[in-house]
């Protein structure tokens, strides 16, 4: 099927090429003697009109894209508090860009058409005008000054987090080749120290288990956030650069091995509220239509159909990080504060999980070497093992 398509495309292309050359050749009829390969009046005329037509093409493709794909861009219904400012600035910049684009392209192509060369036409000797230069350096300067001011104001607002006063919830996001993990700071809201040199067994984040702050840390593979509370993400990577990217929250920060980066925002919509927004219901309906069509084809080929899609916030990797870069996400759930607390309460603390794991391991070892002597003492011994584990490094 595809090879047929490719063949078809190639055939049509060569036909198009042949026709185009013919058209240009036809414009030369009656001028065979003039074969200088330099544009003559006729070329100027044809290409002048084409330039004008090209202006139409630029406008058409702009309109086509806005009508058909204008719904795709993330310029409204952001799910975070600062997202509103970002979107507003985006709209202002976009509108400005479109105005300038429309005018300058029109001038450029219209002049190309209007002043196309004709024999006997004389160009105006006009080489300089300081007033004009002044006008078109100062107008962009003024407009940009406004944009810079607005942009920097929002940037400072977003990037500088006062943890002492605002007391945001601290969550670590940990990146590794092709997986995200989250660590909640627990009741004390302080993350325990961590370093990749402490990675051992199920302590895959290298948390310093001897650190008092680490005792209530909770490790999860799903990110839950409470609506309306500021969250500061402490971001680490264990291997290569990744980028913590949550387009719906207008949030992005690189994950850099060897340092902790951060990004903070306040979610303003829960997952279910987001699903109910007009934009999202339309988007999901559209995606499901596409998936249904695909499913039909898959079923016809004897494969399993695709599941219908339900929107979930995602944390994506947005910095090339290896072969499966394209498939590194984590589900993000925004819920009410009560639901969030309930969810977090049900999670086991890391220290506890490590204890259990080590106990199981030791028990298994003992059972192997000395099946008869399993008793409580061995379990007691484990706890010391856990405490010693980090210092061993």
């Amino acid at each position, binding site marked *: 099927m595809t090879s047929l398509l490719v063949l078809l495309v190639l055939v049509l292309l060569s036909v198009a090429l042949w026709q185009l050359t013919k058209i*240009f050749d036809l414009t030369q009829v009656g001028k065979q003697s003039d074969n200088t390969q330099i544009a003559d009046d006729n070329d100027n005329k044809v*290409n002048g009109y084409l330039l004008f037509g090209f202006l139409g093409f630029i406008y058409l493709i702009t309109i086509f894209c806005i009508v058909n794909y204008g719904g*795709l861009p993330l310029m409204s219904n952001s799910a975070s508090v600062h997202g509103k400012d970002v979107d507003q600035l985006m709209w202002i910049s976009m509108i400005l860009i479109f105005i300038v684009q429309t005018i300058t392209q029109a001038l450029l192509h219209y002049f*190309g058409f209007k*002043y196309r060369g004709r024999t006997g036409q004389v*160009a105006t000797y006009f080489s300089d005008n300081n007033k004009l230069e002044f006008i078109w350096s100062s107008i962009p300067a003024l407009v940009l000054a406004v944009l810079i001011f607005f942009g920097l104001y929002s*940037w400072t607002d977003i990037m500088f987090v006062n943890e002492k006063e605002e007391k945001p919830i601290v969550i670590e996001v940990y990146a590794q080749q092709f997986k995200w993990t989250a660590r909640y700071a627990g009741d004390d809201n302080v993350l325990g120290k961590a370093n990749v040199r402490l990675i051992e067994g199920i302590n895959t984040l290298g948390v310093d288990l001897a650190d008092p702050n680490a005792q209530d840390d909770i490790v999860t593979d799903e990110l839950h956030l409470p609506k309306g509370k500021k969250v500061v993400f402490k971001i680490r990577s264990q291997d290569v650069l990744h980028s913590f990217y949550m387009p719906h929250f207008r949030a*992005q920060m690189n994950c850099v*091995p060897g340092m902790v980066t951060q990004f903070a925002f306040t979610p303003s919509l829960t997952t279910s509220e987001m699903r109910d927004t007009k934009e999202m219901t339309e988007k999901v309906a559209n995606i499901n239509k596409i998936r249904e069509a695909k499913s039909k084809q898959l079923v016809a080929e004897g494969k399993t159909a695709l599941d219908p899609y339900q929107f979930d916030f995602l944390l994506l990797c947005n910095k090339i990080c290896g072969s499966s870069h394209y498939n590194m996400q984590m589900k993000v759930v925004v819920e009410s504060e009560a639901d969030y607390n309930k969810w977090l309460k049900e999670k086991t603390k890391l220290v506890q999980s490590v204890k259990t794991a080590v106990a199981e391991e030791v028990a298994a070892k003992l059972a192997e070497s000395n099946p008869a002597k399993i008793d409580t003492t061995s379990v007691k011994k484990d706890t010391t093992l856990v405490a010693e584990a980090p210092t061993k490094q």
Partner: protein
Amino acid sequence: MSHAHDNHAHDHHDDHHEHHHKDTFITKYIFSIDHKMIAKQYLLTGIFMGIIGVGMSLLFRLQLAWPEQSFKVFSFFLGEKMAPEGVMTNEAYLSLITIHGTIMVFFVLTAALSGTFSNLLIPLQLGARDMASGFLNMISYWLFFLSSVIMVISLFVESGPASAGWTIYPPLSALPQAIAGSGLGMTLWLVSMAVFIAASLMGSLNYIVTVINLRTKGMTMTRMPLTIWAFFITAVIGVISFPVLLSAALLLIMDRSFGTSFFLSDIYLAGEVLNYQGGSPVLFEHLFWFLGHPEVYIILLPALGITSEVIATNARKPIFGYRAMIMSILAIAFLSTIVWGHHMFVSGMNPFLGSVFTFTTLLIAIPSAVKAFNYITTLWKGNLQLNPAMLFSIGLVSTFITGGLTGIILGDSTLDINVHDTYFVVAHFHLVMGISALYGMFAGIYHWYPKMFGRMLNKNLGYVHFWVTAVCAYGVFFPMHFIGMAGLPRRYYTNTNFPLFDDLQDVNVIITVFALVGGVFQLVFIYNFFSSIFYGKKTVQNPWRSNTLEWTAPIEHIHGNWPGEIPEVHRWPYDYSKPGHDEDFVPQNVPMKPGEEVLHH
């Protein structure tokens, strides 16, 4: 060069030079020290590399439009290892985008564009016999050739070519455990780039010295064509910033091969802790972009210089605001070295730095706007000769505006948060520097082809080439903004692996169709280029009725460029349609008439 050329020298044919220069085939065509021949060598090598680079983009566009489908072309070009049963692997995809970026940025748009036209035009437009050092110039080309060969060889190593993106951020590029392409492929990439930088520096130093020292009598700095200004400043930026990339590459080689920790720290990979401590990938990003951003202007300025010349000549009008154009070239060059941080707003560097870089970045829009407006005003009330070179120049202004405007979004740190590293960026830089610089290169080729090969390119094939390319370039990159704004990250092997981006797939198909059509139509150019070398219409000495000095040199290439005396310059290069003259152009070597006014320059 000596003044030994007699008037009769150029009457002889190529093969009759022996009596004053012992030109064998090797010294004339291979190890030539003649700037015109070296320019042609750069151009041919660049076209060859360009075919590879563009071809790769077509391959991965196929994958993006029809993900994980089997294509015979994949089996043919990539082989069983990179495309088992004709399905491109994800590692092969990353290799293709990496090498596509590297080849297009460095080998085609830096070396081939600058190398070709700086070499061809600097001596000819300045009225010099040759470059300041012909020998250094030859070495420069052959080092570039060597680096191209190494880069091409790296495509065939067993572990695959470099695949960490053209920005080769460590640790991914430093650790073969992280991705297979970071093994021998990456080593060759780095070696190739080190050689490339040496070539580029030798070329740049030569250009600078030639411009400063070898201008003919009367050729003051403010009588130089804008092409020369652009090449000159480009060379200066290159000399300032390329050494920084060299040091970054050397430190990376040390991290990779000798266990140092310049860019690496605290890494746990493949089940073990690596010994690196205290380095920072952010340092590499700073070093890389200290070159990387000026690199954009190293690519673009020569294209803008070529365009200035082509537009003025074909509009039969002086370029509007000659001094403003020079000032904006200087401003762009200066600003370009202090804006690199806008590639790193979300790299983890101090957000305050982000504020500073937002400020400097948006400033660069001002000289860029001045240039765009000046081009448009140059067209106003002209007598436009719409030759293919002129169309490509107008096309350049168009894509430069379209692509440049979105820079206002990306340069604003607040807005960059959400579109950083998405397809929006891909669309932006392809339009503003990729397509624009390619148009500049095409404009240069169509315009100076008669100077290089003594024959004309077929104009009708040129028109077909331009119009299809122009439509396809917008067809590819305009819709791409929208999928970027929808949050689709770049360098994704497929966007259909999870449902969030399923609705972007049809856009990807449209983009690929335009890319394929545009790619195939480049064959028209290739055909036109090579067939015209042999069968093109013989040119006259000054086919475009242009003012600059290269058209006063004979069609036949001779060592030293001009038989007899070198021309003396009496006026600026933009006296087109000057009142009081019979012709609509007055070449630079024509003395001022008694009482003729020097207008505005």
